[in-house]
């Protein structure tokens, strides 16, 4: 080993950081080289001084200042650090649990929502049909000109132009009397409450301007808006009678009709318009009805008249329509 090379290795030799072979070579060389021995001694002297350097005491405020800076750092990004620093072995299971939970919730919601038919899917008529009880609404209560509802529940006036705008909508309760049926006819169904039901009329009506109204027992019911072309005597309950007149001037016929009723001791209980017909609600002695019919025949053509059963006593509710 050359002198220069040995000189470079003295530092490592000094720290016993050489292999056995190199160490022996240098040891042999040092035995014969005073210069290398002096250089080795100088290195030992230098190392001795370097190792004597003491530790330097930091200022007393250094730790507090360091922690203040660390706290500022922690306060600026606490949540983000926690999210970033969460080890994968915690994040992955949490993510898996979250995915499973979301899947279960989504499945449950899909099943729950899927069983309900959205209201927007149904037509408005169907929606109303599903929410409305299966009874025919009273025609009078629907307002003037309101046609019987379709099977789907729509309430479309057959002819709105025929409806006076100022018609009151008030019909006494007992205005659902059916006309007396001529012999051979039978009363198919009881009139609906508050409606002017004429089961027999339905058979005579050539056409309905609106679809039949869904009614109990499946019969389409005219709720008073249909123009009746042909009338006949219909048997109604004795206390609910109706007379239908055809007059030339409906407005002019009102006073004579009222006088006919009052002169026989009857009284006017109400006045209404319904589907273009004038209605006069009266109370009169049952025995006076035939005489009233005779008087009304002088005012107009009797289209419908009640057949008062024999032995009827007391007052009867009579509706005169013209």
């Amino acid at each position: 080993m050359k002198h220069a090379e040995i000189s470079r290795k003295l530092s490592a030799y000094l720290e016993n950081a050489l292999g056995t072979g190199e160490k022996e070579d240098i040891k042999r060389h040092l035995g014969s080289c005073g210069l290398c021995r002096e250089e080795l001694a100088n290195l030992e002297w230098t190392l001795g001084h370097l190792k004597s350097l003491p530790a330097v005491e930091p200022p007393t405020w250094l730790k507090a200042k360091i922690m203040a800076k660390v706290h500022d750092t922690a306060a600026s990004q606490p949540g983000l650090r926690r999210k970033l620093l969460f080890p994968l072995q915690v994040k992955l299971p949490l993510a898996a649990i979250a995915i499973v939970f979301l899947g279960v919730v989504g499945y449950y919601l899909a099943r729950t929502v899927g069983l309900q038919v959205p209201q927007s899917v149904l037509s408005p008529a169907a929606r109303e049909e599903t929410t409305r009880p299966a009874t025919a609404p009273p025609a009078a209560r629907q307002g003037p000109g309101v046609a019987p509802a379709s099977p789907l529940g729509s309430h479309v006036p057959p002819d709105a132009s025929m409806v006076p705008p100022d018609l009151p909508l008030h019909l006494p309760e007992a205005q659902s009397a059916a006309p007396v049926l001529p012999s051979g006819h039978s009363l198919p169904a009881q009139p609906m409450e508050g409606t002017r039901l004429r089961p027999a009329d339905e058979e005579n009506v050539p056409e309905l301007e609106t679809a039949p109204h869904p009614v109990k027992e499946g019969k389409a019911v005219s709720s008073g808006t249909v123009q009746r072309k042909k009338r006949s005597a219909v048997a109604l309950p004795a206390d609910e009678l109706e007379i239908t007149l055809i007059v030339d001037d409906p407005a002019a016929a009102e006073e004579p009709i009222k006088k006919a009723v009052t002169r026989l001791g009857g009284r006017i209980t109400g006045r209404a318009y319904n589907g273009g017909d004038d209605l006069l609600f009266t109370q009169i002695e049952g025995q006076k009805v035939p005489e009233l019919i005779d008087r009304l025949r002088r005012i107009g053509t009797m289209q419908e008249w009640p057949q008062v059963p024999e032995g009827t006593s007391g007052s009867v509710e009579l509706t005169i329509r013209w």
Partner: protein
Amino acid sequence: MSKYRHTTTDEDSALVASWRSGELASFEALVAKYQKRMFTIAVRITGDYEASCEVVQAAFVAAYRGIDAMRGSARFSTWLTGITVTHCRNLLEQAPVASPTRARLVQATLHEKLQDCIKTLPAELREAIVLRDVQDFSFAEMCDILTVPEGTVKTRLFQARVMVRDCLKQAVGEPR
């Protein structure tokens, strides 16, 4: 005998784990334990007491922020020393410290002269001689800290010792 123990004790592992889980008090305990050692390294490398305060603060804050960068097998003391040495190097690159004058070398005490001799070295030689001869790090640890091969560490160490020897000879005279 080494003045310092550069092994990760069970205490360090527990403190680091606690710190990782969010316990700031654990990090404070690590600061208390290593602030003097890091400050000494910074002073010996930079030769500037005031600048070393800033270096150590920055090193600990960087360690706090960069905990995820620490390998699981690394020792905290070694890892922290590497951060401190890097900050010292950055400081020297930004504001090189002037070498002491001959007069200064004559008037100062022995330790001051020795420190002044270290300051005459280039940054990489200062790091090698301070870490090995002042702080007694092993060659393996120095390789981790300086991220250079062991041969490079030994070469730098030899050059640094020779230069300090020559500087010290001028400052205090020939060794007796």
